[in-house]
């Protein structure tokens, strides 16, 4: 079947949401199947790892990947913003695939972002792909943000995990039944911290059982919220394959 996020981006109207209602460090949150985390008490939408202009970043190195990923990701972003109409949007880093991405982005995409950000606070958290912040875009850049009882940063911290919402790892999880396996991007949370799925349509995933994830979560409480077509599938860590 078509890549899950691309299929969503290509859909005429986004499927109705059946998000999973959870709490992170006591803060109410909704994991949306489009890949955004909505914090209703703060009217805040969190997305992570947009990797905008990834195609162009490869083209600069001689691999002419299709120049359509930015548009598809922004369409998904528009859909999730329309769904919650948040006061604040936090983009959790790796907003662009490389340092030059935001400066060299075609104007049409820049205008789309301006429209999406109109009337909202927009915070660009810097990531490892784009540590220098953004060029000529609305909103402000920061390395991390403390807000509403949570800490927002790109890379999960190994020492201070409580109340942290991070990205970077592109978590995905695999479930299996009777020898059949499905792998999907997921929100990963043990109630104390949460790692966001990658929002960009041209991003890969890293399995929740990969060693890079070690030490981040209390496995007994860890739940993977997998992104389905129009709902979230919540599965305990111990029931995952991998």
């Amino acid at each position: 079947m078509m890549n899950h996020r691309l299929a969503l981006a290509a859909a005429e109207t986004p499927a109705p949401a059946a998000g999973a209602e959870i709490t992170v460090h006591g803060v109410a949150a909704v994991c949306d199947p489009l890949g955004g985390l909505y914090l209703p008490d703060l009217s805040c939408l969190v997305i992570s790892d947009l990797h905008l202009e990834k195609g162009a970043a490869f083209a600069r190195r001689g691999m002419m990947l299709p120049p359509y990923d930015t548009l598809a990701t922004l369409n998904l972003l528009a859909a999730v913003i329309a769904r919650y109409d948040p006061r604040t949007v936090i983009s959790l880093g790796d907003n662009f695939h490389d340092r030059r991405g935001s400066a060299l982005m075609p104007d049409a995409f820049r205008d789309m972002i301006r429209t999406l950000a109109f009337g909202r606070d927009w915070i660009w958290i810097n990531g490892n792909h784009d540590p220098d912040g953004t060029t000529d875009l609305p909103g402000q850049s920061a390395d991390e943000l403390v807000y509403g009882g949570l800490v927002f940063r790109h890379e999960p911290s190994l020492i201070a995990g409580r109340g942290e919402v991070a990205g970077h790892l592109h978590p995905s999880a695999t479930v299996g039944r009777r020898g059949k396996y499905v792998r999907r991007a997921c929100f990963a949370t043990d109630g104390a911290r949460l790692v966001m799925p990658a929002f960009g349509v041209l991003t890969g995933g890293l399995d929740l059982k990969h060693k890079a994830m070690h030490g981040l979560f209390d496995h007994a409480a860890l739940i993977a919220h997998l992104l389905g077509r129009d709902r979230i599938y919540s599965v305990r860590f111990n029931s995952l394959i991998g």
Partner: protein
Amino acid sequence: MIRFAVKPLQIFAPAITFDLVEKTLADAPYNLPDLLPRPFQTWFAEKGWAPRAHQMELLARATAGENMLLIAPTGAGKTLAGFLPSLTDLARRGKVPPGSSFVGVHTLYISPLKALAVDIERNLMKPVAEMGLPVSIENRTGDTPQSKRQRQKTNPPDILLTTPEQLALLLANKEAERFFKHLRYVVLDELHSLVTSKRGHLLSLGLARLRRHAPGLRSIGLSATVSDPMDLQRWLVPQSGPGQEVLHPQEPAGLVHVKGGAAPDISIMTTEDRIPWSGHVATYAIPAVYEEIRKHKTTLIFVNTRFQAELLFQELWTINEDNLPIALHHGSLDAGQRRKVEAAMSANRLRAVVATSTLDMGLDWGDVDLVVHVGAPKGASRLAQRIGRSNHRMDEPSKAILVPANRFEVMECQAALDANYLGAQDTPPVGEGALDVLAQHVLGMACAEPFDALELYDEVTSASPYAGLSWEMFERIVDFVATGGYALRTYERYAKIRRTKEGRWRVSNPQVAQQYRMNLGTIVEAAELNVRLVKRNQLGTVGRGGMSLGKVEESFLEQLVQGDTFLFSGKVLRFEGIRENECLVTNAFSLDPKIPAYAGGKFPLSTYLADQVRAMLADPSRWHVLPDQVRDWLAIQKEKSMLPKRDELLIESFPRGNRFFMVAYCFEGRLAHQTLGMLLTRRLERAGARPLGFVANDYALAIWSLNDMGAMIDSGRLSLGDLLDEDMLGDDLEAWLAESFMLKRTFRQCAVISGLIERRHPGKEKTGRQVTVSTDLIYDVLRSHEPDHILLEATRRDAASGLLDIGRLGAMLARIKGHVIHRALEHVSPLAVPVMLEIGREPVAGEAQEFVLAEAAEELIAEAMG
């Protein structure tokens, strides 16, 4: 054991043919001294040999300026024949005096295998040395050291032995013209196997370029028997493409054809053991195969997949009480290990080798006196070539035993022998040139020197696979090479090739040429990881280092969980994890491995054989040759249900568990059945049958559902005629194809070959994952945003030529119209058992993904609600 002597059918175009061996110089109408310089005559005389008639025929005609094709079986002295025109010409030329101006390569030899190039060098050096000819011979492969390559460029050998990829590299070099301007001959070995692949397309473009550098060039093709020699004869000469004036109308290359030797002696293995209902491994026959190994000097055991090879090898060793030297050879194994096996083989130190198609071709394998083929033949040419591996002396019959792996295969083997099948040649036709290969070539030509698009178009269309290429398509390819060819033109500033003031295309910067060189070639392996055998220390952690065992596909490893065991390289291994780009394993000592399910290597049943099997099924008078168990099986089927006539399609329905099943016996091969299954489930869904899944083997298709399909058919709520109407190959097919795994895999190859995606990037040579971006993602992006993109066009073309199964499906649907018979049964029928046993072995795809997700989530819900 049942024995059959199979006589080859002669279905060749008229040509000069020779019976083997008998005809020698005495009968040939040639003026010996004119053709063969004195050292050759002396050499033949001293050896007590005489040149064979076909060798002299080829020599005379090539020397007179003809392009030539030689078709001959192994052992006919094909190689010497191919080189005689060059060697005699070089002998007449004499030694090049020191201080002469630069002399380029005289003869280029191209083989599909680098091992073959190395082998030929050895075989050719011997007579050259014995005759004292002033001829230098060297090979140039991926293994040739840099210093030698450099020296070869300044001081080329007279005869250079190389591969299609190395030729492309040489041609993309600025010095190409100088290097090749004196070229007189190109000798193309195993041409039949090259021309039908993308490597052949690349080679044809290389040949067109060589002709530009050396207009007087003659080509000599060497080939095994093919169904249509004229395809190859045309391939060897320049064509006049569209829009070109026919300046030098070229006759197809001349044909010299040597007939095959003695008819092979083929039999079907029969044993007392139970023949399995399904499966492809034939474990039941292993003791009998072992007995045959003991009775023969050297046995080659061919299987169709690596998985079969692994399992068979392991099973043979479990009963190898005599400790016979039995080895394993397949493409996933480490190259070093394969070379060792090959060396031991040619030194006659092995009693048996279990092999896949990696051993189909070329090299001389010592004294093989028996070929065992496990699994049904599936296709005749492959079987013929494999059987030809045994006994290289042409006048003695090759000996081969077919080992059917299940009951249907027994019938398939029997049908093949009854129909004298082996002589029928079913080699694939030479197809249209692939567009991704053309894109690679265009970039290579820009690396060599700035090109004029019109000139290059004329050159490209002189290559026979590209003779029909339109100018518009060529322009799109150039645009693709430059900026990716997207409608959204945002990459102009990153273009790889640009136009000069004079309107010629050149590479934008030296890195582009470097990227080209690193990514050249048309063989795209599935993403594979190296398998390394490590040890666990006392603390239970996995150590570093250890032996490299070969490569295994990434998609297979993705399904493994730590602790899972699988069979690889003849060992049962325990999966420990993936570290960087390696798969770490330890010895498992387990007897029940989870087995590698390699994607490749599954050949579909040929149309011809399928028809033969249907015929046998319908005619009990032909069953007497079948083993008792198979005969009983068919008889019970006849009693419990029925056996369809040759032109009928039998559909059975029956309940089982809490499901309803429908089995269709189409005999069109697994791929065609899978496509049919996908299309039928869509229709059954619309008809309200609530289908849940389907499974296919080479002979039948089984679909299961929640509603009783048999009752629906009997009550008229479901019409079989509508269900199986030909119109299903319209929109339903289009929609399904776009999602299919096959198309994605094809796209991946196109993306890599065309240079859209790199295999290797400068400075990152050692990333084990062969492709740096997910091509599935790129495919989906293109499909949703630019469905007319040239690379999707290239993918569809490739798929269409690879999708023979769709054509078969169409032919079947037309054939069975009005001949569909339905039987509603109480229980599963004997004939249905093989396909029913396949259930559960299929990977999950499409809509079913959401079901698996939902079911996994239900556990948590149950926990929360409980």
